């Protein structure tokens, strides 16, 4: 799969990244090589294989009761910053 500089620009936009013009060519080349390498997966017939999304399916994972419990942790983040100020969300076209 040949990745062009336009592809890099498109994917960068999806990922909310800005890529400098002088980096586009290098990235297009590197991503092309990496994708050429992963194309090898096409030699496998996986039409009858189920995808693995979770390794340990027989392990009971942490599901807690939906009740309020005191905890230290990410809630403390609000102690230093009461709100997050962001730039204008709606801009003119």
């Amino acid at each position, binding site marked *: 799969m040949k*990745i062009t500089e336009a*592809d*890099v620009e498109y*994917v*960068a936009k*999806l*990922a*909310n*990244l*800005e*890529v*400098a013009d002088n*980096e586009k060519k290098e*990235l297009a080349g*590197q*991503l092309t*090589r*990496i*994708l050429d*390498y*992963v194309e*090898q*997966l*096409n030699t*496998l017939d*996986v039409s009858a*294989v*189920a*995808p*693995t*999304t*979770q*390794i*340990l399916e027989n*392990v*009971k*994972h*942490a*599901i*807690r009761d939906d009740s309020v419990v005191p*905890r*230290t*942790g*990410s809630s*403390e*983040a609000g*102690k*230093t*910053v009461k709100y*997050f100020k*962001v*730039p*204008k*969300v*709606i*801009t003119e076209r």
Partner: protein
Amino acid sequence: MNLRNITADKLVALYQNRDASVTEVITRVFEEIERTDGSVRAFLTLCKDKALEDARRIDKKIADGEPLEPLSGVPVAIKDNMALRDVTTTCGSKILEGYVSPYTATAVERLRAAGAIVVGKTNLDEFAMGSSTENSGFFATRNPHNLDHVPGGSSGGSAAAVAGGMSLIALGSDTGGSIRTPASFCGVVGVKPTYGRVSRYGLVAYASSLDQIGPFAKSVRECAQVLSIICGFDPYDSTSANVPVEPFLRDIDQPLKEVRIGVPREYFVPGLDPEVKARFEQCIKVYEGLGCRIDEISLPHTEHAIAAYYLIATAEASSNLARYDGVRYGVRKGGEAGLADMYRKTRMNGFGKEVKRRILLGTYALSAGYYDAYYLKAMKVRTLILQDFQNAFGQVDLILTPTSPTVAFRIGEKIDDPLSMYLSDIFTITCNLAGLPGISIPAGTNSAGLPIGVQLLGNHFQETLMLQAACNFEKAFLLQ
């Protein structure tokens, strides 16, 4: 006191018998860091004041005759992608420069509760993406055995801190080999536990279905001791496994009885360094000498593991790293042209090259029209790799491989060729895809004095046998 010649249990015994004070030892540790870390550069942040405060508190406990905890006064270093309250967590990234954690990761909290003293936070490839610690947004860490060589990655700072005598224990995280590769390159022991064994609460996510925290130390026994402290269920991590933690140390010195060890034929790859191969064959003999049965096994989908890994890991990373947008954490740039402008400029300036590359690759693999061809296919290949191991563990108890196809490479050697860097993870990556526990054990050095490592893989939650077999090897290898 030289940390290179002492183990954690002996150090605690010294304190207990009042042959050394914790304050004295921790002061010496910082002197050693000052001497050594100017060239090795393992640490991003030192916690000297807090460490000395902890030391004085433990000294007081000893003076009062209070009982000590298993790791009382033992210096530990923490990879800088784990949260420690009131201390910066940068993940080796400019985008998190100056970010201070409001809470402490569960694994770190458990170590501290067991008496361990955090001396500092260690360098890593940015967001744990890399195999050499050259991708840090701040500086590269060097291998204490030879400063012209990399320490491995991504937990290179943690491995170098232990190998360089600057900490006794360290924590790292392993997504595709990030504990085992640096352990191998730096000549120390490193363990990646079963997925779900150690809580990931407070570990900054890179690829959530693969990430796992584990210890570094100079000996298998010390790693087993740390594991017995940090493993176990945590309600704050929804993937934490609620399975009992066995006493890993209890039978660790017992001889191995009728243990079957598999050697996968697919791991004799063309890129395997001849000296590493010869040493690996010698390691097989060591296990034969310990009475183990060695069987050749097949893991037929090994050759596809790196391709599957770099699609799954980058896809998960592109999603996990979306949160670094300049709103809540660290650095903020731009914004003159609105919110989207701020997102893009912050991310462009904050992320390094490799992180951008992986975000782009992951975004591409998940994008409309390519999801089925790349991401979904990789997840199906992951199933095949898992089945390979399930079949293998029907025949054998443990799997023995080299940890890395080479010894530590030179700084700069692979930095411009991301694919060749990815290929160096060939022996460690399958373990993460299958969620298995793995350990890298030192097996001497090559003719140039660079360490070689050997890797044992166990079945899910079979750390006890894996550690026992590793401990037996460690002793037998030294006696050769």
